[in-house]
């Protein structure tokens, strides 16, 4: 049991950087390769690595199943919310023009919000699927 010291310490060192890289991919998405989907998978990868090294129960303390389950619709709600915000500002659905004074600036905001929604849903879905597989035959 205690022979996995290197793994445990190594994982602990890596974990914050995985999350940081996920955020980098997320915010880099509108300039280069990346975006919410990839970022969501990387962030979920952090939780999954944590679960593999420290056990599912430990992982469920940092990402409770109820939160993970709520993240799935929450991301869609953020995405749809961005669309509906456009509607409420008198523009078409998913038209971000009203989000800022400058047209391009507004669209950048819009993309970032939408990508955030994608990140939340993808991350939640990945972790929820992982939990579902890990729990098979236990409960």
């Amino acid at each position, binding site marked *: 049991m205690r022979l996995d010291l290197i793994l445990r310490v190594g994982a602990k060192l890596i974990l914050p950087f995985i999350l940081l890289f996920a955020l980098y991919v997320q915010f880099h998405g509108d300039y280069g390769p990346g975006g919410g989907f990839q970022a969501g998978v990387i962030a979920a990868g952090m939780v999954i690595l944590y679960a593999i090294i420290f056990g599912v129960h430990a992982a469920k303390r940092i990402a409770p199943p109820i939160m993970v389950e709520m993240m*799935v619709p929450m991301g869609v709600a953020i995405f*749809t919310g961005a669309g*509906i915000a456009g*509607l409420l500002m*008198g523009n*078409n*659905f*998913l*038209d971000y*023009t009203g989000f800022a004074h400058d047209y391009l600036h507004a669209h950048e905001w819009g993309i970032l919000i939408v990508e955030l929604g994608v990140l939340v849903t993808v991350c939640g879905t990945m972790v929820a699927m992982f939990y579902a597989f890990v729990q098979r035959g236990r409960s």
Partner: protein
Amino acid sequence: MNALSWGAAEPHLPILVVVIPLVGALLTTFLRNGFLAWLVATLVAFTLPFITIHLLLTVLETGQPITYKIGNWEAPFGIVYRVDQLSGYVLSVIAIIGAVIMPFARRSVVAEIDERARSWYYTMYLLCLAGLLGIVITGDAFNAFVFLEVSSLATYVLIALGKNRRALLAAYQYLIMGTIGATLYVVGVGLLYVVTGTLNFDDMASRLSAAIVDPGQRNAVVTALGFMVVGLSLKLALFPMHMWLPNAYAYAPSFATAFLAGTATKAAIYLLVRVVFSVFGVGMTLENLPIGEVVIVLSIAAMFLASISAVFETNAKRMLAYSSVAQIGYITLGIAIANQAGLTGSLAHIANHAVMKTALFLALGAVFYRVGSVLYDDISGIGRKMPLTMAAFAIAGLGLMGTPGTAGFISKWYLAVAAIDDGMYSVVFLIVASSLISVVYIGRITEVVWFREPSKAAAQAKEAPLSMLIPLWLLAFATVYLGFDTRATVGTASEAAKVLLEGVR
């Protein structure tokens, strides 16, 4: 209803048709309570028909399609939603069926779905509704594929939650077949995109005329047509690609069966009509591939072979599912004949069949609620215990046979006229002959439920609750009403057929 004022929401109605059920689905996931989820779903489902009917009436009045640019991107670059006579009509059919069955859902879902799955069940229902409406309202080939997947994925869950463990297998079968169908469709879309460089249906149509002359691109276009027709035929369960349908309908929860039988295949039929008529244009289709003849033969095979399967079936839901395959045969027959009367009959039958089949499945759902089974042995004599339910069943059954004075007669009449117009007199005979088989299978179940001694299970049953009887009788009444006043069905369908045939090249 057109007097209804929508105020500032008026220009945004096309997108609201999809956004409202989507937001409703999100709400139900956060509520996590079966009753509240039902309340949200009902509210959403009853809002939609007002919007779709308003859109349809506006289009019929002005004769001009309504378009909506998502994100305000111009037509061929962005996704455009487009409501014309055809899509407004099919949207209204789906939205009305989706609303009418909601009162039925509450008790049926409580009886058939586990408590912790109930709110998710309504989530899936609303997602499915959003997907089906999206397929019909979008003017973009790839967006249609996305909505096809949204509705299909939700449908698999709706079916898999059935109490009978075979529901899982049925859902899996449908998952495989449905995925193959959607894949074939998207392969076709890909080929068209390579040739035309666009995904917008209208833009595609205008660029295809040039592409078809070029011998290098002609093969790609013809291949795309083949892929799309076969893929959509799988989704709409055209014989012999219907094998997923009987089990899926038989083992799904009653509410899901009633909803899917009325709406799911109809959206796929809409997409087929849209692709064949609006994008390719029938003239081009028929010159290059004998699709018309093939579909006519398959439709007639469906009318007979599926009807005969229905005759020998001893599970009432499976019997009606086979009958659905046969009825889809009538719809595709008219589409394949492709003249004014044929298309009118087919499109009218989309609404008529939706009304009748939903009524029949609702009646069986009410029986299942009281008896717990729909096998002939268990429900024999149930008519004496649940006379109101089974009377409505009989009325809708008469409609299915095509008895004069019911909705079913009207659409078959137009199909027969279409066949005569095209000089296919043998087809007229076949339409009548296959209707006679439906007399046998409806007659058989009528004999079972009315004339036999009640079985043990049936003897203890009571009449269905009012919340189930009201939607059932509304639809049974509509079956008769649409047999006399055909303005809503045939009137709109012939307008849509006229517009579709104008696009023929």
